[in-house]
């Protein structure tokens, strides 16, 4: 194996010529499709009782794993066919916390830590797939860098800061044949799947309106102030340049790196992105609009975008809703048709329905969906299955990009304070030069794609 010097001066195995089958089985993710069947076939069929030999596991790593990411990681670690081996984070405290979680899980000290994402990707050619759970600002860039380095990607949401970033994620995943899943896990939860299928199958009549929750605490208007400058910590503690990544520079203040980045235009996608990234994909799935975005955005004169009406190419309205008017609890969504409505939010034992009769086929509808799509009711399991089968996960790059394009366009509508029309084929606003200029933001060097 040739050892090469990376741009960072680190020694690593950057290139592989050809693989023997056994080498491949040890390293590349598709090996799982061949032998690590328990995720796709019941373990009993193999006589393995669910156990997966180490050589057939998906070698897994993490990038920017904070609070939410640790939750997802804890969700992933029990999957028997993965082995989490390394974490990369600009913050020492975060990478060490994740190492502790992984080491505790495996009962060893094997999880390696990296500060620099380029070093991590260059050195760890053994890693098949990564969990990315940085803040909004890094999700797309880290996904692109990882996929370009040959990794499959599970990226937390919101998965892009701009329409252009989303396009780049789609292009990169296609280019290298990577498996990518955005963390809209409700697409793999039975209550939401039931609602989506009820709408798609016409059991509510022709759906005319869907409602999607936006974050009830943030605003659509964004902050631009800089917090007071504090002395930059040593790079090993917090690599501030890397933390900022592609965003405009600003002086260090520890509050940003402790979660206080939310609400800032440079780092966050607003209350619409904060929860639209949780809910729009489900709403668009139910109206068969996962491969497109809303075409009309009607400005609402309030600080949040609450009650904004968007219209999809098939004429169905999606209304952004901030409160609990259409559901109880968080991340709600609802479909309305002439023959009834269904709604779900987190924590429901079963969806809310206009008539209990609509719930009669709950089990069947979910089971049919699972049989028809071969998808499990577990978002992370769907991802790992696809890493092995090379199929597209339920929240694949197109689903991410199209639902996030709706988020971005809604934000732009609020920021420019006027109605918008968007052409989802050309991916541009119609007759609005200013809006089109907000589809991308120049990335800060050297974090360009």
């Amino acid at each position, binding site marked *: 194996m040739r050892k090469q010097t990376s*741009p960072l001066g680190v020694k690593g195995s950057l290139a*592989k010529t050809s693989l023997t089958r056994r080498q491949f089985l040890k390293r590349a993710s598709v090996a799982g499709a*061949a032998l690590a069947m328990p995720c796709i076939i019941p373990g009993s069929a193999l006589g393995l009782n669910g156990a997966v030999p180490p050589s057939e596991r998906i070698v897994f790593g993490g990038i920017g794993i904070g609070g939410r990411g640790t939750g997802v990681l804890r969700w992933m670690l029990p999957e028997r066919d993965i082995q989490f081996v390394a974490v990369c984070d600009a913050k020492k405290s975060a990478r060490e916390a994740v190492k502790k979680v992984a080491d505790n899980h495996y009962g060893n000290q094997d999880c390696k830590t990296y500060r620099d994402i380029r070093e991590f990707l260059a050195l760890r*050619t053994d890693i098949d797939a990564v969990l990315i759970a940085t803040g909004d600002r890094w999700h797309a860039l880290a996904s692109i860098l990882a996929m370009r380095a040959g990794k499959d990607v599970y990226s937390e949401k919101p998965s892009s800061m701009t329409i252009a970033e989303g396009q780049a994620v789609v292009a990169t995943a296609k280019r290298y*044949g990577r498996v990518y899943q955005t963390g809209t896990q409700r697409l793999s939860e039975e209550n939401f799947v039931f609602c989506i299928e009820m709408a798609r199958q016409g059991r509510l009549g022709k759906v005319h309106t869907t409602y999607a929750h936006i974050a009830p605490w943030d605003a659509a208007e964004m902050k631009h*102030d800089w917090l007071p400058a504090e002395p930059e910590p040593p790079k090993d503690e917090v690599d501030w340049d890397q933390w900022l990544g592609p965003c405009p520079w600003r002086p260090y203040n520890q509050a940003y790196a402790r979660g206080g980045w939310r609400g800032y235009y440079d780092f966050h996608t607003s209350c619409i992105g904060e929860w639209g990234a949780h809910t729009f994909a489900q709403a668009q799935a139910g109206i068969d609009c996962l491969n497109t975005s809303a075409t009309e955005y009607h400005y609402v004169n309030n600080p949040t975008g609450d009650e904004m009406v968007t219209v999809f190419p098939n004429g169905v309205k999606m209304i952004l809703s901030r409160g609990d008017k259409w559901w109880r609890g968080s991340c709600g969504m609802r479909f309305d048709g002439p023959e009834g409505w269904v709604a779900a939010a987190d924590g429901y034992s079963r969806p809310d329905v206009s008539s209990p009769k609509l719930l009669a086929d709950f089990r069947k509808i979910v089971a049919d969906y699972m*049989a028809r799509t*071969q998808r499990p009711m577990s978002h992370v399991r769907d991802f790992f299955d696809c890493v092995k089968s090379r199929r597209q996960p339920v929240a694949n790059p197109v689903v991410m990009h199209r639902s996030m394009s709706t988020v971005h366009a809604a934000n732009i509508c609020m920021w420019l304070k006027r109605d918008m029309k968007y052409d989802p084929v050309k991916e541009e606003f119609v007759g609005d030069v200013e809006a089109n200029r907000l589809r991308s*933001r120049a990335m800060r060097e*050297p974090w360009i794609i």
Partner: protein
Amino acid sequence: MLTAKFTLGFALLLAGTMVSFGQGNASAKAQEAKLIAVLKSDASRKEKADACRELALIASADAVPVLAGMLADEQLTHMARYAMETIPGSAVDDAFRAALGTLQGRPLVGVIGSIGVRRDAKAVQPLSGLLRNADAEVAQATARALGSIGNAEAAKALNDALANVPAANQVAFCEGLFRCAESLEARGERKQAMGIYDKLRALPSAPQQVRAGALRGAVLARGNDGVSLLVDAIRGSDFVLVAAAARTAMEIPGAALTKALADELPKQTADKQILLIQTLGKRADAGALPALFNLGRTAAGPVRIAAIRDLPEIGHASAVPVLVELLWNADRAVAETARTCLAGFPGPEASSAVAALLTKGTVEQRLVAMELVSRRRMNESIPTLRQAASDEDARIRAAALKRLGELGGLSELPALLGLLSKASSPDDLSAIEDSLSALCARVADAEATSSQLIAQLSPAKPAQKAALLRVLVTAGGPKSLEAVRSSIKDPKPEVRAAAVEALNSWTTPEAAPDLLALAKTAGSPSEKQLGLRGYLRWAADGEVPPPRRLEMCREAAGLVERTEEKRMLLAALGGINQPGALSLILDYLDDGAVREEACVAAVTVAERMGQGRTPRKLTAEQIAGLEKAAQVTQNAELARRARAVAAAAR
């Protein structure tokens, strides 16, 4: 240049805490002039950054000179590009190109990136020279930018440089070539695109993702002629390419490829077979079915399972008889997979096949069919289930009753009640009761179900009556509760016990007064105890408003005798953040059996009373009580909390 004073005043307007986009076209020009003035002034970095952000939205070529002048400034180069990247017209491109010869390091990397974003074809020549730059970041950014420009000239520059590219830059150069190939193909220049992909495929020492991407591109660029290339990859020993071929096959429609993949199935090893099977499932082309049927019938374990699981995904009716055949396979995993697939198989043919099994099958087949009837929600089979509920075989009867409960509606209620009245064996009675409960749980019309159930109560035998009382809990509603209430006084002990059990299991707080009455007046101590405990459970239920729960606790306080009941009372009081609850709790500090529980409840309530927008004050007696709790508790942490909350209250 403007004075610093003027600039600062204006910049403060810009740097407000909220962004203010969309100034309107009329004022845009004036706004641009003001922003340019900020950039020309000695304003702070923050002020200039804000100006650049606004210029990104509205700037014209007028802003280019001042922005271009900032490109070499390491502090402002990014924000200058931030403003420039979105400005229409060639002035920006000219400025970026001009900067290529003057910059180095990070500013140069940034400008190269922006040229790529703007796809400036005139920049190919100056960029080409940078491909061999000693700074790896510069060379890599250049390769990607040339790729974004993506014309034949850019592709040639990258191609020419590829042979001698340092390994560290190889992936970036490949990325550039991929981008060129995609652009060329989009413009109809397929041959050139193919040439690039083939070159990348043949690249010695290319990383796996490049080889995978190159295969994909080469196959797609060839159109129908790409099938043989894809099949060759599947036949090969490089699993990176096998996987890439499978992935690519999901992007290509058409019967020819389906046939080619299906033809490969018998020739391949099990691991490749599974990958191919999953690929064929995703393609959902019925042309693959004969091959899948064959594997579903004859292959070994995992391959066989994978082939069966494809059938509902493809969803063609011809798969139904195969699935029915596999239902009875000796291999349990095969049979279970077939059952799951048949349960979710789309279309009426699968339902017809299940209905046929239900009427004509053996006992074992009928049992499986009944499960499938329920899973497929085959309401049309309810009459058959109704008949089966009186079958001579006990297993058929039990299964039919279970499925009737899962599927049936209000119209099935009389039949089930008829069966209940005639049931003689405990097993049948239990199965009918479960079926009735399942049905009542699903039927929304509580009034209608309870009326029918209650009508059966009076003539029913004791065992049937007890069963009906338990079903009434599921039916719910005021009429059902009244019927249960009346039965508390039934002379038959079996019926009375069922009524007490039903009252205790009632799912809404309307039963609470009856439970209290039971606790006070029941004939037997055990019934009194059941009543009191049931009442205390409602006193602790968060769905009941706190004042009402406090009232209930006061009622119960006079009745509790046993330690367990005192604990339940304290647990209920601990969830009520009201002064009355705290006073009641403090009474138990002297009770050695529940002293610790009382201390925990008291501190919890007192702490919560002190929180929120309008904290409630504690009385002197309550403060003294908390101080006493601090003294008597065995828990040091709890004592500390008790003292703290008492001190805060004082």
